[in-house]
């Protein structure tokens, strides 16, 4: 039985399609992602909390879903929009079709709409509030509800996705030379896996953990994770990081990068429609090396706001010149705006985990092979 579903944007633009997930109605910021595969990782990336994600690739769900590819405990998006959802899953690892997966987990999902038209709309008007609904088909009413919904900067989404309580991960594999604390702002599972694979044992703390709590773990390094929403809302975390800047090596990814920019006294601003995809070229200024990167962010650090004595911009996005990486000149700390853990996306920048490890080793006076 086909069920209708609609999307309305706060500026009144409405698209009618069909539901392929759960029944319901959700509001959020509407954004698009240009990755051609990796939809399950996208669905489960906590950075998408508060957002309705439109996939630009039209055929989604072809290879189904598998528990192995979850980036967190289940879907995080507010809504999911595709041109066409596959009715059949074909892959040796697949357990459930995407339709089953979304319906079971209560995600409102829309198919059969002109996703390219939505993308072009967002591109020219900017990311905006929107609503997906299987309950109401009245465009004007839906648009009004979208408009009335809280915006990203009115919500502290990080507190919604951070872990309930601090915990230590147990990972039996491999020798662990370093102990690190991960500040969970909505951390992707792949990041934890890669940190562990780099020889770190990981303690996870809530995003609002105090500097004292972090240090009580006696870490060799601090990792600031990715996460959703406006970094400016997370003042508590910014001040914690500021306190710890000279104490230990710090590595930040995505929201973590923005937090470090703020901790350095910089400003962040909202991009018109953000960077979400798996094909963004990022140049490391020192070497000229270009990595094709996975990206998922709507905010960026304003380079003009940074004190050049304290912080150096190390990476830029070749699409639009925005800041993609920072290095602290007086402290062992660096961060990137993109996702070296990829998932989904290219593995070009995985070497950054090694850089973090080297930084901790240097601090400890260790020599690594």
């Amino acid at each position, binding site marked *: 039985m086909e069920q209708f579903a609609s999307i309305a944007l706060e500026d009144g633009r409405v*698209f009618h399609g069909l539901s392929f997930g759960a029944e319901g109605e959700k509001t959020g910021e509407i954004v*698009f992602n*240009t*990755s*051609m*595969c*990796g939809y*399950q*990782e996208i669905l489960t990336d906590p950075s998408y909390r508060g957002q309705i994600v439109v996939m*630009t*690739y*039209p*055929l989604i769900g*072809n*290879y189904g879903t*598998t528990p*192995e*590819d979850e980036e967190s405990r289940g879907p995080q998006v507010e809504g999911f929009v595709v*041109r*066409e959802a*596959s*009715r*059949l899953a*074909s*892959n*040796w*690892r697949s357990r459930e079709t995407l339709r089953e997966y979304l319906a079971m987990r209560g995600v409102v999902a829309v198919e059969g*709409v*002109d*996703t*390219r*038209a939505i*993308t*072009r709309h967002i*591109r020219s008007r900017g990311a905006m509030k929107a609503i997906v609904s299987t309950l109401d088909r009245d465009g004007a009413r839906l648009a009004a509800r979208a408009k009335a919904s809280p915006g990203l900067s009115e919500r502290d989404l990080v507190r919604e996705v951070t872990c309930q309580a601090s915990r230590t991960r147990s990972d039996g594999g491999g020798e662990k030379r370093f102990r690190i604390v991960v500040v969970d702002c909505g951390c992707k599972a792949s990041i934890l896996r890669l940190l562990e694979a780099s020889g770190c044992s990981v303690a996870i703390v809530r995003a609002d953990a105090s500097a004292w709590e972090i240090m009580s773990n006696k870490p060799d390094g601090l990792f600031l994770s990715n996460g959703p929403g406006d970094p400016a809302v997370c003042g508590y975390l910014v001040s914690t990081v500021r306190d710890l800047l000279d104490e230990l090596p710090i590595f930040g990814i995505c929201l973590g990068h923005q937090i470090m920019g703020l901790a350095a006294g910089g400003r962040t601003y909202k991009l018109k429609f953000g960077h979400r*995809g*798996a*094909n*963004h*070229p990022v*140049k490391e200024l020192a070497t*000229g*090396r*270009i990595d*094709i990167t996975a990206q998922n962010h709507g905010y960026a650090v304003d380079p003009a706001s940074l004190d050049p004595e304290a912080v150096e911009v190390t990476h830029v996005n*070749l*699409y639009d010149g925005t800041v993609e990486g920072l290095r602290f000149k007086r402290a062992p700390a660096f961060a990137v705006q993109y996702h070296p853990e*990829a*998932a*989904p*996306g*290219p*593995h070009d920048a995985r070497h950054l985990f090694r850089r973090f490890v080297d930084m901790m080793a240097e601090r400890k006076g260790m020599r690594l092979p």
Partner: protein
Amino acid sequence: MPKRTDIRRILVIGAGPIVIGQAGEFDYSGSQACKALKSEGYEVILVNSNPATIMTDPDMADRTYIEPVTADVVAAVIEKERPDALLPTMGGQTGLNVAMELAGSGALDRFGVRMIGADVSAIRKAEDRDEFRAAMLRIGIEVPPSGLASSVDEAMAVAESIGYPVVVRPAFTLGGTGGGIASGEDDLRRIADFGLRLSMRGQILVEKSLVGWKEFELEVMRDCKDNVVIICSIENFDPMGVHTGDSITVAPAQTLTDREYQDMRDAAIAIIREIGVATGGSNIQFAVDPKTGRMVAIEMNPRVSRSSALASKATGFPIAKFAAKLAVGYSLDEIPNDITKVTPASFEPTIDYIVVKIPRFAFEKFPGAKDELTTSMKSVGETMAIGRSFPEALQKGLRGLEISCDGLDARGERKIEGRDLEECLRVPNSLRLFAIRKALRLGWDAGRISGLTGIDPWFVDQIGRIVEMESRLAAAGSLERIGPGMLREAKRLGFSDAQIAAIFGGKPSEIRAARAEAGVRPVYKIVDTCAAEFEACTPYYYSTYDEENEARRESAQKVMILGCGPYRIGQGIEFDYCCCHAAFALRELGYEAIMVNSNPETVSTDYDTSDRLYFEPVTVEDVLNIWEEEGPIGAIVQLGGQTPLNISRRLEAAGVKILGTSTEAIERASDRDRFRELLIKLDARQPPNGAAVSTKEALAIAARVGYPVIVRPSFVLGGRAMEVVNDEEELAEYMERALEASEGQAVLVDKFLEDAVEVDVDAVADGRQVMIAGILEHIEEAGVHSGDAAMVLPPFSLRPEVIAEMVRLTVRLGLELEVKGLMNIQFAVTRDNQVYVLEVNPRASRTVPFISKATGIPWAKVATKIMVGCKLQEIGPFDFPKRPRYAVKESALPFARFEGVDAVLGPEMKSTGEVMGVDDDIGAAFFKSQLAVGCRLPTSGTVFISVKDRDKKEAVSVAAGFQKLGFKIVATRGTAEFLRRAGVEVEQINKISEGPPNVLNLMEKGDVHLIINTPSGKYPRKDEVRIRTTAIRRGIPLSTTMSSAQAALWGTDRLRKSGGRLDVLPLQEIFGMCEERHADRRAEALAPPPPVG
């Protein structure tokens, strides 16, 4: 890094003639490379023997050599031009192999030429199977178990150790030539033997077969700073075991999770680095076990390829153009993305549509060849379609393929009627899509279909969506009973109006009208490399049934050019050349050119060629949609071959304005009765003929006109099913077959003019004046299809009054038909100098690019200008070359691809491509033309002669000629006796049936260097076929007509006189710089008559 300043002159090697496995895609990449290098200020020297290419247009390179692409000839060019660098990666396998030979022979070192892009060691690592394997193991990438063999015995031993089935892959060959899958010892013995002979170094790889695994390809680019990006992923619809050129392929990959895709991407990056391709593009193939996800690397092409052309068209990322820029030192981030202008090329394209490529086959052309798809490529062309769903793209592709179906429909399914369905699914073949359709319709389980075919369940399910929609439509029964919603749904699944009409039993125009009323219209979306993340500046469109239309209505004066669709035998790159020139001409005149085509192997579908590109099937429905969207002033249909012509009447009826010669005139020339009236009116002779719809009628006509007669079904392309028959028995047998196949259409019976010389005359006309563009004398006598015949410009044996008569008739026909644009007339000249008109084609013919290259005048451009209203006088003056030279056109034939098919020329066209040999001397020009198609005429050795009785007299002078040059002549009894009586010294050998020593033994030993063997009739004796197929297999020069034997004699003679040296001369010198005027007869023959009117 900025571009290199230590090099100034760059040599680019082209791919030579179009052959199976190496087609128009290399013209696309080669022209892009030439343009890119020239725009960077480098002097470009180009060698390519193929005159039908855009890249050999005199303004594409600075020095253009239309010469054979062989190591010795290219060495001669290097010696003359002294380039600083050689770019070997643009000319396909041919370019790569020649570059390797030049490096090996020391020619590059001798003249200080550096290879750029890929060097010798990288090419060897990628191409040499053993080195490739070792390289993969070094970086921990799995490859299928395999072993090298230099003999059949070694091959058997390898297979024994790794287990059957095995794949045989010869080193350094093209498109899997000489390869195959062996399931047991007998297979392997045969395939290994063939492969060893074809391999450049007598080496084959015997590899564990991964039949049934999924196949993927990645297009990778690397720059001098070691930045590597993936341009496109491609998933093969067909499993391993089917050559990727014969597979339906899909971009991007559909059934890989991100994890699997990224692992493959990592492997591809590691591979291009390990192989050491310094800069440029490579294609890497992988196989994946569908049950476990296990991935192995299959092979790598360290150059641009068919897949890179497809990837460029599929993504909008011009791989060849950028590869050329990377080769001269730029890095990816220094090159702006052509389409967005604001972002750099150092990124990975992401697309928001699905691309399907479907190959086109020509099995019907080669009786005896099996419709079976293997690791040796057999397709002759392809179509690409873009859609927002797989069914949409697939069905657009199918209707663009022009194989008498309007999608995945019942018409297509009829082709497999009566065949065992399970067999059709189990053994890969060209009709497998229709077999899947039928099986699904019959309710076969999708899993079973997937199991039999090895095709991923996802693809089978997508086809299931088409089948389900069709049955829903059929259940509704009529247009009235489906609403606009369902109509739109069907359109979204790619159903054509014709397909829907067939289901309801109506006309396509009714569906069109209903759609218009319901507002179910296509929208056009842009191919932009970035899934709409950035604004696109390039109007490269595809249609789909979605909400938002991105086509920008502009008020400029626009002209639509209809392209030729997929290449096939009879309609090749020549027509794309004409369409490109139309776009160039329109631009010169200030019109906007709208190009419509569906063939990715073309320059016309480069978004740089036209102002607006519509990558769409060239069908009535799709063209009308674009017409309505764009509102151009007219459409050009006479340059794209039969494809646009076949739909021109229907387009006109729907309101499209056809530019140039009227459809009425085109019909007058093709309708048999009206054509006869036309010739009578103009006092022109035609071979006596008639049309028959029964065997009885045919026999009566033949009796009236006299045997032999030439017979063919009406309305065919490329001489399809055309034959010369000699007597009643043969005719009756032919009619039986033909009537069955022609579905009630008449069979045409013409008197066959024996021993006549055939002549092609190409002309342009503006309605008031007619101008002869060129006169081409065929080397083969009438009866060999003009597409296969070797031809010479100017004529070499015709008397001035004969030429004058042909010119007179051409002018009269041009005026009478009010030709506005191009026309081609085929004449036959009998021994008593009577001129007969065989055919008049008031449209561009296959010979237009050849004549353009031979005369230095771009005739298709001239014709286009006429079509939009210019007069010949305004377009001229026409500077014919002041120093006439002989230009010989020769055809490239695909016999080596089809095991066991007889290598004889006849009225049915079989060639896939052409070359041009140019020289002052006709013998040298012929020699070059032969060399360019891979046949090096011997300058000494042994000639074997075996000819039919009628040819024996002529054989005497040829044999005597070769003897005078010091050749030994061998012949079997009949021919030997005849020659001996005429005073020729002959060594007599046994017939094959008489046992050794016979000609086959001599051939196998390499003791025969030229074979002259004319077929004895419609049903050649078994012996002859064995001689000819052995010659093809062993690469021994073979003449199957006396006239080509005569030409071979000239060539050999000339080569001996010049001590084996060939002079090379660039077009720019032929056309520009030589002032002297030759006063001999050849000059008169070439000099065109002034416009008459």
